């Protein structure tokens, strides 16, 4: 059966970012439906029943997250939309923001209505200048049409949406760092608990959701939770945006039901490997923080539970493909430099550990490695993992552990040969 595109149904249309095009394609019908008959609780229950899980990386059930808000309403409640898309290999939210901002906005309004929030913040990474301009324009159009502001569509419901630009910091994609940044501070993650649903932005109950997550909500409202739950696989429901980049012929964002086989994504959607004479060596299915899969273990289904069973994670679905010309030590060095640069420096194991990873990998890649270096990398990773305030520690420990474990002989080769067998191209000039 042909799959009906939902999240990307509009992105190919001319001027798909405008309200006119959105309305002609049925935009804001779900909002009309919700505001003319549904209660916030009914909407929340619908999202719960749909099985929607967060698309930002952790896959936490969205409806359950919303239900953690306190029942008392003595303080304002905030929705923060996490548009700080920074996980290497991930560029799906950018596509939605630039090409179908009204779908995202409709999802924001519906979700805000469900959790009784009247001010939502769209925290967008600083480098997405184009996306921010487009989204600001979409917001202005929505105000003019009565989809935002006071008494939306005559329902008595009020909502303001404010964009807020980050300024270049991967860590601000971590939800509590995002809140700190929104409060005008350095983006240092907070210790949890308390969780943001209880103590979030400005000390008030706050929900933080990913852009793609909220883009699912209009479909759930319009067609119902039962229909939505029929897409994908049990407990892994709905449409999903998969990114694929690296050594593939047609890198891009592809929509498919959760649970599509990785090899189908690679060969049918992304056109297969870039060079016909260079076979697949390894792939990261879920963004740079997730564990690597060697080619012989890439026959996996892309959903939360299947990838967890395969020893990695779906993460942000930022798939990266490496062919036989890739030096795994060099690839890991590249990522170690990323994590060293992006560590916020708050926790010693992460701040120091990321520096050690870079130092050891650099000497391996430049032919000055020591026999004990692969074990030393694993030892440092053990000391970082689980010993930090936020999941950044795991985000760097997991790639280190998996690259070294899965490709141990390649690390050893760098030591015995006293040089990178691939030419050491990863060393930054």
């Amino acid at each position, binding site marked *: 059966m042909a799959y009906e595109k939902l999240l990307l149904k509009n992105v190919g249309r001319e001027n798909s970012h405008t309200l006119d095009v959105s309305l002609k394609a049925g935009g804001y019908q779900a909002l009309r439906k919700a505001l003319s008959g549904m209660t916030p609780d009914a909407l929340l229950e619908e999202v719960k029943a749909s099985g929607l899980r967060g698309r930002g990386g952790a896959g936490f059930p969205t409806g359950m997250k919303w239900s953690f808000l306190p029942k008392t309403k003595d303080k304002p409640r905030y929705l923060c939309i996490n548009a700080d898309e920074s*996980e*290497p290999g991930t560029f799906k939210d950018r596509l939605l923001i630039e090409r179908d901002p009204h779908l995202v906005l409709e999802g924001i309004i519906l979700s805000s209505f469900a959790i009784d929030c009247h001010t939502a913040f769209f925290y967008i990474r600083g*480098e997405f200048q184009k996306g921010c301009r487009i989204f600001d324009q979409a917001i202005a159009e929505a105000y003019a049409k009565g989809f935002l502001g006071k008494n939306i569509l005559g329902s008595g419901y009020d909502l303001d949406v404010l964009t807020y630009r980050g300024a270049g910091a991967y860590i601000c994609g971590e939800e509590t760092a995002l809140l700190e940044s929104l409060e005008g501070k350095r983006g240092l993650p907070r210790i949890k608990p308390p969780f943001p649903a209880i103590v979030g932005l400005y000390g008030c109950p706050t929900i933080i959701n990913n852009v793609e997550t909220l883009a699912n909500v209009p479909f759930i409202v319009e067609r119902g939770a039962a229909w939505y739950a029929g897409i994908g696989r049990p407990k892994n429901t709905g449409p999903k945006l998969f990114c694929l*980049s*690296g050594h593939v012929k047609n890198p891009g964002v592809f929509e498919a039901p959760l649970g599509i086989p990785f090899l189908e994504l690679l060969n049918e959607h992304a056109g297969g490997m870039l060079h016909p004479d260079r076979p697949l060596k390894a792939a990261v299915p879920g963004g740079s923080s997730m564990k690597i899969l060697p080619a012989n273990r890439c026959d996996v289904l892309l959903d939360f539970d299947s990838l967890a069973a395969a020893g990695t994670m779906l993460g942000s679905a930022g798939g*990266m493909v490496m062919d036989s010309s890739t030096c795994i030590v060099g*690839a890991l060095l590249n990522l170690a430099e990323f994590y060293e640069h992006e560590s916020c420096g708050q926790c010693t194991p992460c701040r120091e550990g990321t520096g050690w990873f870079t130092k050891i990998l650099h000497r391996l890649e430049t032919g000055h490695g020591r026999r004990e270096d692969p074990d030393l990398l694993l030892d440092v990773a053990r000391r970082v993992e689980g010993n930090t305030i936020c999941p950044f520690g795991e985000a760097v420990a997991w790639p280190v552990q998996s690259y070294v474990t899965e490709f141990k002989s390649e690390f050893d080769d760098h030591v015995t040969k006293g040089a990178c067998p691939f030419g050491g191209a990863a060393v*930054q*000039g």
Partner: protein
Amino acid sequence: MSDAAATLPVSADTDRRIDALLTKYPRRASALLPALYAVQEEHGWVSEDAMDYVAAKIGVSAAFVAGVVSFYTMYHRKPVGQHHIQVCRTLSCMLRGSRQVMGRLKERLGIDVGGVTPDGRFSIQYVECLGACDTAPCAQVNDEDVPHLDPAKVDAMLARLK
């Protein structure tokens, strides 16, 4: 900030923009990041004088502002080129040739990573994943995304930026 108008390190227009930011968010402190952007849009970078000015506007210490400015990579603490070229260095771009792109830029401009040409027209920097891996290797020139680069396209880009 008495005698402000005469000694403001920003234009009256930027000063008004920042005043508007102070009441835009539920808390005044949230205006800090956007206020720093407003300053940088005018001057191209954020000087210590500008930090002192923003600190007084928001009502926080200059040290607090300096801490924020130094945390985020997009605030420039020294002037950058008129065309600030940032090449993505992270994995997908590296796999598709970002090193060669940067190599060509260094060669053509005669400066190192982090440098500014003597005439102040160009500066080059590596940047972490721009979230545009489908266009790897990619770069950003000021606000503009530049997709699918290679050494030949670097030449064309520099010619266009003249």
